[in-house]
C-alpha cells in the first residue's frame, strides 16, 4: 500500500500528469483556456505515429515472441469485455439496456492516450515492454463495437439498430478509422526501418515526445473536466461503475498477461488497455449506429471519470500489482 501511494505520488509529480491536472483545474475555474481543435488533432496524430513507430522498433529489436497469440488474445478480450460491463450495469440497474450496451462497448475498447501515458510511466522507471502491445492496442479498438451493437439489438430488435447496409458501412469505416491506420502504419514503419532508420527521426519521435504529451494532456484535462461539468445524466451509481469497472477489467488483463507469459512492462500495459475506455472511436460509432443511446452518458463516463482515474491512480496501481505478480 505504501509503495502504491508512493508510486501514485511520483506519477502525480511528472510534468505530463501535472499538465493534465492543470487542464482540469482550468476547466474547474471556468477559464477560457482553449487548445485549438486542429492543434489537438495534430498532437493526437503525432502521438499515435510515434507510439506506433516505437512499438514497431521494439518488435524489430526483440523479435516476435507469440505475436499471433497476443493479437488473438487482444481480439478476444475486446469482444468479450463488454459482456461483463453490460452485466454489471444491468445487475445494479444503473442504465436501461440500450444505454448499457453503448457504455459497455466503450469499456471493451481502449483509450490510446491512457496507453501512451502508461508507456511514459514505464519509460521513466526504465521498465521495457514488448512492442506487440502497440499492435494489441490497435486490435482491441473495434471488436467491442460489434459486441455493443449486438447487446443493443437483443433488446431493440435488430431492425432498430439502424439500417443494415449502414451497419456494413459502419464496420468498414471503423476498421479504417484514422487512429488505427496511423498506429498500425507507424508500427509497420518502425519495424521496417529498424534502429538505423528510426535514428533519423529520433529527435522528433522520441526526444520531444514527453513535451508533446504535456500539451496534449493539458487539453485532455480541459476536455475531460468540461465534459464532467456539463453532464446532467450522471448518477452516483454510474460514477462508481466508472471507477470500479477499470479494476475489474484490469484483473482480467492481468490474467491474460499471465496466460501470454508477459513480463512486468507488458503485464502493466495489458492491464491498462483492459482498464481503459474509448472516448473517440467508439462514441462516434455508437452515435451513428445507436442514436437512442445518450452520448451525455457514455462520453462522460469514459472521458470524464475513467480516463482521469486511470491517468492519476490506475496506471501506478496496475504497475504496482504487476510488480507483485511478476516478483
Amino acid at each position, binding site marked *: 500500500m505504501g509503495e502504491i501511494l508512493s508510486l501514485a505520488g511520483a506519477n502525480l509529480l511528472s510534468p505530463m500528469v501535472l499538465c493534465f491536472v492543470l487542464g482540469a483545474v482550468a476547466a474547474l475555474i471556468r477559464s477560457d483556456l482553449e487548445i485549438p481543435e486542429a492543434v489537438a488533432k495534430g498532437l493526437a496524430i503525432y502521438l499515435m505515429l510515434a507510439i506506433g513507430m516505437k512499438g514497431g522498433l521494439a518488435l524489430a529489436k526483440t523479435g516476435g515472441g507469440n505475436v499471433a497469440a497476443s493479437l488473438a488474445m487482444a481480439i478476444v478480450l475486446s469482444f468479450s469485455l463488454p459482456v461483463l460491463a453490460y452485466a454489471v450495469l444491468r445487475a445494479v440497474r444503473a442504465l436501461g439496456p440500450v444505454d448499457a450496451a453503448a457504455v459497455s462497448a466503450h469499456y471493451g475498447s481502449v483509450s490510446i492516450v491512457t496507453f501512451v501515458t502508461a508507456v511514459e510511466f514505464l519509460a521513466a522507471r526504465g521498465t521495457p515492454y514488448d512492442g506487440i502491445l502497440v499492435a494489441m492496442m490497435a486490435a482491441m479498438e473495434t471488436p467491442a463495437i460489434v459486441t455493443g451493437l449486438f447487446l443493443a439489438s437483443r433488446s431493440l430488435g435488430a431492425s432498430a439498430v439502424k439500417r443494415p447496409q*449502414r451497419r456494413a458501412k459502419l464496420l468498414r469505416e471503423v476498421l479504417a478509422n484514422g487512429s488505427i491506420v496511423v498506429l498500425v502504419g507507424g508500427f509497420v514503419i518502425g519495424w521496417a526501418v529498424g534502429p538505423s532508420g528510426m535514428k533519423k527521426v529520433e529527435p522528433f519521435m522520441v526526444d520531444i515526445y514527453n513535451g508533446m504529451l504535456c500539451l496534449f494532456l493539458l487539453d485532455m484535462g480541459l476536455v475531460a473536466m468540461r465534459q464532467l461539468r456539463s453532464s446532467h445524466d450522471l448518477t452516483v451509481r454510474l460514477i462508481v461503475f466508472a471507477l470500479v469497472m477499470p479494476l475489474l477489467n484490469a484483473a482480467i488483463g492481468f490474467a491474460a498477461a499471465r496466460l501470454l507469459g508477459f513480463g512486468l512492462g507488458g503485464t502493466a500495459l495489458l492491464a491498462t488497455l483492459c482498464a481503459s475506455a474509448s472516448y*473517440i472511436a467508439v462514441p462516434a460509432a455508437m452515435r451513428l449506429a445507436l442514436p437512442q443511446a445518450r452520448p451525455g452518458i457514455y462520453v462522460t463516463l469514459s472521458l470524464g471519470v475513467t480516463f482521469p482515474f486511470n491517468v492519476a491512480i490506475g496506471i501506478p496501481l496496475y504497475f504496482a500489482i504487476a510488480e507483485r505478480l511478476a516478483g
Partner: protein
Amino acid sequence: MEIHRRKKIEIVVESGMVPDVVEWLVAHGVKGYTTVPKVSGFGRQGRRQTEEISRVFENTLVIAIAPEETARLILIESVERLRDYAAIVYLSDVEVARPDHF
C-alpha cells in the same frame, strides 16, 4: 432577365450524419448543396459545441436550393428520418437567375 423562385432547405445536423443527409438529398434529385462545418448550437439535446475530441457533439449546417416540391418532400421525410438525431430542418423562399442549376 427572368427571376425564378426556389426553396432553400437548411438542415442543422450532427456532423457524423452529414454523409447520410447528403446522400438522401441527392437521392431526391437535388443538384447541389453547400455544407458549413463546425457549427455550434443548443436545442432539445442540450448544448452541442465543436472543439471536442470526438465529433459526437459537433454540428454542420447543410444548405440546398431546390424546387418547391422537392423541398417539401424533404421537410416531411425529415421528421421520421432524423428523429433520433440532433437535427432541425427549415425552408425558405429564394430567387435565382439560372433555373437549370437548381
